[in-house]
């Protein structure tokens, strides 16, 4: 938010992301900011995907970790 704000909308061609830069930036700096944003989107997308795919394993292992604490119950 300190560099640009993003407006996300659905369009015929898919999801469109318009970036509005707060101040005037050089082309290099703008390009760098856009690359960072793309990487962030990819990273968050991967996190969501992996979180879903590995949910059962994760829950199994965390449940095992807490299994003897006596703080989980059938309440």
């Amino acid at each position, binding site marked *: 938010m300190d560099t640009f704000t993003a407006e996300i909308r659905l369009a015929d061609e898919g999801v469109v992301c318009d970036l509005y830069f707060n101040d005037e930036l050089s082309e290099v700096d703008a390009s760098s900011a856009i690359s960072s944003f793309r*990487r962030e989107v990819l*990273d968050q997308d*991967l*996190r969501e995907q*992996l*979180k*879903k*795919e*590995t*949910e*059962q*394993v*994760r829950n199994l*292992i*965390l449940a*095992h*970790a*807490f*299994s*003897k*604490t*006596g*703080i989980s119950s059938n309440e």
Partner: protein
Amino acid sequence: MSKFRPIGQFKAAPDGSYNLLPFRFTELNHAQFVLSNLAGEYLVANRDDIPDLINHRLSPEHPLYIELRARHFLIDEKSSIAPELLAIKLRTRYARLAEFTGLHIFVVSLRCEHSCPYCQVSRQSEDKVRYDMSPSIASKAVDLALRSPSQNIKIEFQGGEPLLNFGLVRDIVNEAKSKNEQVRKNLNFVIATNLALVTRDMLLFCREHSVSISTSLDGPRDLHNANRPRQEKNSYEKTLAGVSLAREILGRDQVSALMTTTKSSLSRVTDIIDEYRVQGFSGIFLRPLSPYGFAVKTKTYEAYHASQWFEFYKQGLEYIIELNRAGVEFSEYYAGLVLKKMLTSDDPGYVDLMSPAGIGIGAVVYNYDGYVYASDEARMLAEMGDHKFRIGHVLTDDYKSLFTSQNLLEPLEESFAFSSPMCNDCAFEPYCGSDPVFHYGKFGDYLGKKPQSEFCLRSMSIFRLLISKMEADRYVRKLFTSWANR
């Protein structure tokens, strides 16, 4: 692993071919890959063999084939029991997890008479007694520690300098032992102290109650005193005098030391190791600075990059290997922890290398003011004003409320390495850890961005180094195996 393939996929193929069991692979160097299975067993394979393996073209006569079968990377008609064996190893690996919190850290005082610029806890000056833990807080913390399901409980006294509140240390030991008569845990105590203020009476108490000592020794006199200033400029002398007295009264094996790497240390690793040898220690734990407390305020933390520390570590490890080769028994303890994970089915339970993260599960901290933190690093982050990992207060929260705090559960779930991009397909994941406190402190989220993470860079560099050394040198393999099995 969220979906199961048809059972036929896991049966031995009848026609002499093979089926693959789950594994991951990561580059070791330009010509080789490390493969690791679910139980963390690893193999090194040439780059060119990987496509053949994955496309089921690897011949049973290939030298790699037998190793892959023996270590449960593939299954054929001669190895139908492999999935069951893999499952047993996996269960063994995770068995310790359900023991839950074994390490309970009591910060009995934030006061200290040293002024170490890299101090991670924003120590207070000696005369501020309001930074001492009170007896009522200590008593509740003892109850919480003994409430842990772990059969093995270690109570570690930290500070500041815990000897400045030795009266409370004594009371906590006595109270814990008294209450333990009901629950019968294996109870151990350790004091993390600079030893500058230790007395014979204190050590006699420690001997009577089997309290061991962990102190700080950063290297030769000039380095140690530069790193750890005291008004009288005699930290080194005080530490060694304390070590000598502690060994005399408690026994050599009850006194250990830790070092911290500063920028001044980077070119002196062999001097530091030699100092440990001269002082009669049988090993050293080469560790980097953490980004907390005064280490951040004084910019000591930013004084060097992870790659510089890794060169320091590599040089130190190679020096220690050569010492051993020349007949001098001396260990590097961090390598020992990692090697235990690489070469055995055991997990050492080292808090910084756990996934799920060691916060809460491996260790918990009861601060002098009664607040409870998910780890030592979480407490240090709090000293910088960020209470993200504070899970409650001993006087107002019970065990359930502390360990179901969202400040614990959320980072545990969000930082799970197997669910993390890059970690999920990394062959080194079984040996690595999550460290949500570090990543939160550096990146503002529990996971961080691994390509930018110094934790990741440092860890992967060490894993590659250890495996490369073992692959290249049989002596080193034997030495490392002995460290792993300690």
